[in-house]
């Protein structure tokens, strides 16, 4: 599997998602995300935001068109290649995502431990550093069910920014989150973009990303007729 390092990071080329599988409108979705770009997508319906992020991750079957990540069409890859490629995506999702049988520290580091050969100490050190950056006292070792909702949001941020993600699919982590998280989040976002990551920031409320207005490359709205470009100026 050879990934493309130049050109668009994520390409939705008239991709028509299966309505039965996703509930997304079965209309062509077209978008292009370059490395280092940050695209805000306004989605009022949280379920649609989840499904749109799923479509970008190749989890939603398409009736037509294609979705390419790093130059590779999700539909043409085998399971192992698909999983390896998804290992390069950092995601914050509104869908329940904490396995109940693992401690939070393992759930945070699971993706890195599974997809990379990085030494365990490195992974733990990075997770601890990010945990502190996002306002946690250290890498949380309790089970996710024992953490407060605010700490879970912080832990989700840590998990998403772990490693060196090439694509970040962020389903509005700043909504209903502690105010002090905003600076840490935006700082991590900028660092990731500087390292070449593309960001799709799904928001429900336009007010949330206004503090980062200068950094946003483009703005879209997830509507019944697909993705609609919105002027940011």
């Amino acid at each position, binding site marked *: 599997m050879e990934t493309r390092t130049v050109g668009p990071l994520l390409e939705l080329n008239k991709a028509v998602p299966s309505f039965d599988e996703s509930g997304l409108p079965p209309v062509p979705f077209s978008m292009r995300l370059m490395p280092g770009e940050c695209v805000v997508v306004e989605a009022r319906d949280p379920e649609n935001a989840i499904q749109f*992020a*799923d479509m970008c*991750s190749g*989890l939603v079957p398409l009736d037509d068109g294609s979705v390419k990540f790093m130059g590779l069409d999700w539909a043409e890859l085998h*399971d192992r290649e*698909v*999983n*390896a*490629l*998804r*290992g*390069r*995506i950092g*995601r914050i*999702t509104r*869908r*329940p*995502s*904490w*396995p*109940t*049988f693992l401690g939070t520290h*393992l759930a945070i580091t*699971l*993706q890195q*431990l*599974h*997809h990379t050969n990085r030494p*365990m100490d490195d992974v733990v050190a990075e997770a601890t550093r990010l945990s502190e950056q996002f306002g946690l006292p250290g890498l949380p070792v309790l089970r996710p069910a024992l953490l407060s909702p605010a700490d879970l949001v912080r832990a989700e941020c840590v998990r998403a920014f772990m490693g060196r993600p090439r694509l970040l699919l962020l389903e509005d982590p700043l909504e209903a989150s502690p105010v002090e998280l905003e600076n840490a989040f935006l700082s991590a976002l900028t660092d990731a973009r500087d390292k070449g990551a593309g960001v799709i920031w799904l928001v429900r409320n336009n007010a949330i990303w206004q503090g980062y207005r200068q950094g946003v490359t483009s703005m879209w709205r997830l509507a019944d007729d697909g993705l609609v470009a919105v002027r940011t100026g």
Partner: protein
Amino acid sequence: MSEDNIAPREGGGDRDPILEGDATPHRQRRPFVLHEWIREKLAWLGHITRHQARFFLIMLGASWGVIYESFRSHSWRRTVCYEFGVTLNSVIGGGLIATLFAGTLTGVAAVSQTIYWLGLAGLAKMTGSILVNVVIREIAPILVGILLLGRNGMLSVTELGLLTTGGQIRSMQAQGLDPFLLLVMPRTLAFTVGGFTLGILFSFAALLTGYIISRISGVITNPVWTFFYDVVVAMSSTDYLVIPLKFITVGFVVGLGGCLTGLTATNEDNLRTLLPRGFSRGMLIVMAVSVLFSLDL
């Protein structure tokens, strides 16, 4: 309101009086037509058959998948090894006392009684072969299978079922974590090793307890190594293959069946539907393995 709605609700049932109330008038308007009734019943029968066959086919495919993946070095990542270790610890470490206790009870109830009655009938020479054929070859795999199912298999059904219906499995897939590789394969293999280990320990505990009880009650006077020697001599070359294979297979299918029942849960499932399904499937699987091995070999 129809009489159906007035009738008391069945305890523990999933009947919804509101939905039933909506459906009843439609049912009442339809005249009874024999061929439609037969068609409905046949459709129901076909649905049940297809549903059962579906799980059997999934089991077959997944069995091959587990065996195939387990021989690939790339499959044994840190996370997979961790899950294998944790499950093995839970299956063997957690089930050890229960298995030894069940083995002891079997020794008291079955082995010592067998020794006593065979001695009384003057068939003491057959003790070894009867213990091997009845206790070790037939009873032990079934009881160990039931213990595995109840203690760890149902846990897998519940855990994976809740993860599937809760959406966590989908989230794992979004991170590139294949649930088959990360959960099904290591858990199934841990159950396989656990089935063999607990089966051997169960057999040993049953035979030893049976010997101790018989020795204390004065039914036999042989030393313990002579008793075990008689048992070992009574085993045929096929027994050396079939008995371990039966323990291994029971562990394998209980582990795989539990994981797959959990992973194939749908949004309509909850604990009330998952647990009975997991238990009945597990019991059927254990009995089927036991019968299959007894048929040909």
